């Protein structure tokens, strides 16, 4: 196959660019464990009303000082709300849904996960800045989807 010299240079440059992009992703994943929420755990959505963790979800402090926040999404509210957590402490959110798929997004941060019935979504994040944050549902969940919001208070 005859390839023009300039085209050859371009193809190598494109390859280099892709390698740099991928390198940046793989490096941060490997070195700093920066990963999207990929927790694997299933739960029966029909039993959430009697579930020890999710029936009345509350912010829990672990013995090591880290925080766990179970969150239940339902049309059209987040529970608990408001959520109060301390700043500069790892906070683990555990999220599940009782009905349709919802989104759990803390606006202005990179906390962003799908809440899928039958599964528990989980990720850990540290909030360095004190303040109030909006929690929004970012997956269409019915006619009042846009009304579904919550509040996070970082103290």
């Amino acid at each position, binding site marked *: *196959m*005859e*390839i*023009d010299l*300039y*085209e050859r240079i*371009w*193809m190598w440059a*494109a*390859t280099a660019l*892709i390698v740099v*992009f*991928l390198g*940046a*992703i*793989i490096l941060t*994943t490997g070195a700093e464990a*920066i*990963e*999207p*929420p*990929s927790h*694997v755990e*299933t739960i*029966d*959505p*029909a039993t959430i009303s009697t579930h020890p963790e999710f029936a009345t979800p509350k912010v829990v402090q672990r013995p090591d000082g880290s925080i766990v926040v179970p969150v239940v999404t339902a*049309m059209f509210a987040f529970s608990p709300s408001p959520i109060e957590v301390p700043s500069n402490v790892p906070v683990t959110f555990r999220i599940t849904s009782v*009905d*349709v*798929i919802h*989104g759990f*997004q803390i*606006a*202005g941060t*990179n*906390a*962003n*996960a*799908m809440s*899928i*019935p*039958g*599964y*528990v*979504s989980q990720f850990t994040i540290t909030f360095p800045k004190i303040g109030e944050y*909006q929690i*929004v*549902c*970012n*997956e*269409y*969940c*019915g*006619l*009042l*989807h*846009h*009304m579904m*919001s919550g509040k996070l208070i970082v103290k």
Partner: protein
Amino acid sequence: MTTTTMTATTTMAPATRNTLALANIGVAIAAFGVSTAMGLLQSLSIADINFPKRSEELYYMSVTAHGVLMALVFTTFFIMGLGYVIAQEGLGAIRGRALGWIGYWLAVAGSLSAAVTILRGKATVLYTFYPPMQAHPLFYIGATVLVVGSWIWGGVIIASYRAWRRDHPRVPAPLTVHGMLATVILWYLATIGVAIEMLGMLIPWSLGFVDKIDPLVARTYFWWFGHPLVYFWLMPAYIIWYTVLPRIVGGRLFSDPLARMAFILFLILSTPVGFHHQFADPGITAGWKLAHTVLTYGVMFPSFMTAFTVIASLEIAGRLRGARGLFNWIGRLPWSDPLFAAVALAMIAFTFGGFGGAINAAYAMNSMVHNTAWIMGHFHVTLGTTVALTFMGATYWLLPRLLGRQLRFTWLARAQPYLWFAGMSIFSVSYHIAGLRGLPRRVYSASLSGDQGAPWHFLTVVAAQGGMLLFLSAVCFVSVVIATWTSGKKIDAPPFEFAVPLRPPVASIWDRFGLWTVVAIVLIAAAYAYPLAELLSHPRYGSPGFKPY
């Protein structure tokens, strides 16, 4: 090949008019026209600009209709029409025309069934139709029948190719045909995913044969289909870029073998990447998401190659028109030609859209933008401009050749691509920024539960201005099409001419579609078999259907 194509078509009489192509393109443009009006209403609604009958029901129903009509109906029918043009002009004949009509009517019936169900408010589930949100069975069945119709179209294209191949052993197929074959094969591989989801899960569940459905498994099948769907739209646009654009401007195709290679790379790389739409999902392990990320970046490569080849082909044209110096050739290009302007602007949009896509696919960075208005901004630059504007430009080129009629309102056709580009720039940049600030996508009102719109309210109002320009542009486009179709001056249909490569095409490994289909299947199996098996092996509970609309 080009010479035979030209002689075959210059003599084309109205009697041999490619009605199959015209019928498909007609449906595509009708769907596009209806859908753009809905787009305008949505951009107003998000910005809290009131209009009569504005309601949540109307908003979410019209988001569903806009998505289905644009992403599934407009694109599929346009591509089917283009496929029939290419079969006729590149291969000399469409084999199985009658079957082609059966496919067409199935696809029309399926689209109507889905569209009417949506408009009646019985399927407000968006074009992604994620369960356990449940639609009326006729929505799922209609969408499935549309896909079945397109499968028949694919069969006609392949049969036409095989008939041609018997008479033309060992010569490479015309590049148009090569690109279209890759598109057809990709479509078969992609639609396996959605067929499993529809036939195995959604249809029996919506009919009440089974009570529960696993939403995550269904989503996974959807995105097996959902990402290559993007390339199903993009590859026909690339066919136009590679084969029509250089010809229109009087240039030559810079590199034929690399164009062939690009189509093959799309064929094999664009399906095993679906998890990049599911980064935020539980239940899929990080390692598999990373694997799909690597392949996602791989699929950028053929787009980089396309950028080089197409721009080099245009530079040849500019220099043949007497351009000197480094950049002077750009000004020599026919910026007032509707096809050229539309396609060139589509390509500029793709530069931004492509890099935006690289950000979306960036694994951790995706968390900043996932399901925010940024994504709306992104796919309106890519599907909404790169693909849609290319198809609009191609329509200006196709109609006189298919109808034997002169384009009417040429000045409108000239202005329309610029209007679209301007409108989309305003619309898309605003939503990109609003998304970064946290505005979720697909909301009836950007003030959300009442008073939360402050960080992005202004941006949504600006986006609505963009939406108005887009609608105006769409009105121009549809007016030109209707006027040309019904009352364009009758002329001898101009020939379909495609770009001639600098060096004549030679047979190569890129022509071996059997081999590449196998490679594509192996990659899909490698990317999906294990994670799907893992997903299916968990204790799973399933969900009943919900209809909160």
